[in-house]
């Protein structure tokens, strides 16, 4: 047989085989008509264009914000700059979530929040004194929402956080109490969060989640205040033999458990 005839026979066989394969490629087997719950799963709604989220926070300090060893404020540790002197806090956050595309999975998050830490919050006041911090934050970040067009919307997000941190402390003495003001300090950090939203209807929903915030990654500084009743946040390392009151390498890091309400704009829930 010549090459030409070999090719022709091969082509004919291949074309025939392809016809057989094409006929078999689609698996049309099924066990029955889809029941109602399966049909419900296939229905999709319309993802919200904007979500406003108001959350209330319970904060647990970590690393150097997990002070109060043996659940008691320790004045010496605080003055030596070994920790921030507090452990627990609370707060409130307002977050705007703007969908960056039609499907609504990726959202731009703009947040403003206020958190307060107190050495005598949850635990009783120490005989050595107390300290408290106010943390006012603005954050900008991205979030991925896994089911934006469904009532139940889990999400994971990451934010860059700018914080203004100030505080106040009182040391008990035998005579009059010594009051100390912690001047406002600006720090930049980040937060990572993971949570759920549940839409009760097209407008309102609930949220629940957990967030880890490291507020002072950038901008740490330690310096002596000219006023003895005032100090700076003093969260940077002190090198050499210098001694700066309240100063030490400290992480303003905390976990937040949050819950609250959501308001949705432009959402159409599946019915």
């Amino acid at each position: 047989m010549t090459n030409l005839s070999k090719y022709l026979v091969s082509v004919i066989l291949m074309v025939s085989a392809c016809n057989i394969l094409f006929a078999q490629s689609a698996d049309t087997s099924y066990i029955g008509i889809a029941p109602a719950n399966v049909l419900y799963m296939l229905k999709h709604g319309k993802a919200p264009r904007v979500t406003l989220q108001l959350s209330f926070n319970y904060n647990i300090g970590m690393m150097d914000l997990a002070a109060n060893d043996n659940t008691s404020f320790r004045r010496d540790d605080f003055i030596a700059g070994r920790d921030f002197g507090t452990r627990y806090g609370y707060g409130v956050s307002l977050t705007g979530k703007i969908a960056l595309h039609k499907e609504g999975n990726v959202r731009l998050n703009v947040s403003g929040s206020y958190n307060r830490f107190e050495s005598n919050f949850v635990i009783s006041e120490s005989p050595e004194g107390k300290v408290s911090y106010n943390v006012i934050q603005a954050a900008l970040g991205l979030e991925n929402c896994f089911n934006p067009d469904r009532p139940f919307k889990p999400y994971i997000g990451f934010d860059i956080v700018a914080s203004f941190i100030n505080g106040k402390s009182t040391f008990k003495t035998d005579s009059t109490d010594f009051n100390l003001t912690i001047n406002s300090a600006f720090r930049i950090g980040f937060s990572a969060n993971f949570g759920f939203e549940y839409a009760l209807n097209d407008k309102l929903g609930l949220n629940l989640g957990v967030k880890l915030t490291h507020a002072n990654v950038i901008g740490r500084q330690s310096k002596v205040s000219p006023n003895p009743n005032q100090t700076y946040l003093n969260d940077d390392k002190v090198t050499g033999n210098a001694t700066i009151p309240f100063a030490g390498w400290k992480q303003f890091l905390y976990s937040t458990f949050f819950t609250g309400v959501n308001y949705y704009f432009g959402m159409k829930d599946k019915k």
Partner: protein
Amino acid sequence: MMRAANKISAFLFVCFLFSYAGMISAQEIHVDTIKVNKTRMINIVSVMTVPKLILQLSASYNSGAMELTSHNGGFSSFDLTSGKNFGARNGFGINLTGKIPLNKKGQFWLDVVAGFARFQSDLFAQNSQEGKVSYNSFNGGAGVEYNFTSYHHVKYYFGLNPLVSVISGKATLINPNDNTQTIVTIKSNVRVGYSVYMGLEYAFTKNIGMNTGLKFTHANLLMKKTTDPGANYTQVELNDGATSAFNPIPFGGWKQFAYISAYAGISYFFGVKVNRYKLP
């Protein structure tokens, strides 16, 4: 011979072409006499069933909270011996979790957990001039989990389980004056606590997937205890119970063995079937 083969091939090719051409022309011209098979579109959807059992193996990074931390990121011998804190901050661990569905829809699950966590004062910390301390915690427990989407590829859940932990450790204390070292063994102690967690599993196939999540563990909520080791201590208990300021006990103080874990790992799903339904 060669010419005959060529002729046969050419004949086959022409027959093949004619057979197709005949079919086409027959469909175009003799519509009224030929039965034409109409193409019918059907939509089939595949739905996974709830797993009969999930085995989840995960590794974790642990960050200590409350008294399971240290100051300025370093180890303080005085803080440990005076019982102010556990002296370590960072750790790692591994967990094996078995999950059994408690109802047909797979919303509620019984979780059986076994894990190991280790904390070291010299993990991610450099300043260990005063020594170091490490803890090993073997733990196990059973609890309940709520799964939001058990029959989906992505399964979101949160849960809570009581936890029994066996915690032991070892500390090396360095005397700054003469650099002598004292080795202190922290004996095994049983404590009861809990874990709360939330996370997700992603099924790559019907059987294999990955998992990730966050967990908060408070290992010594119950059974805290402090025992005086005596003057020359080389072996001490965990000593996490409260002591009196007037009668301090070495290593003794009200301490919480609490930590947050960020975990990730693989999941194996048993008994998952893929049901195919036709859409009406």
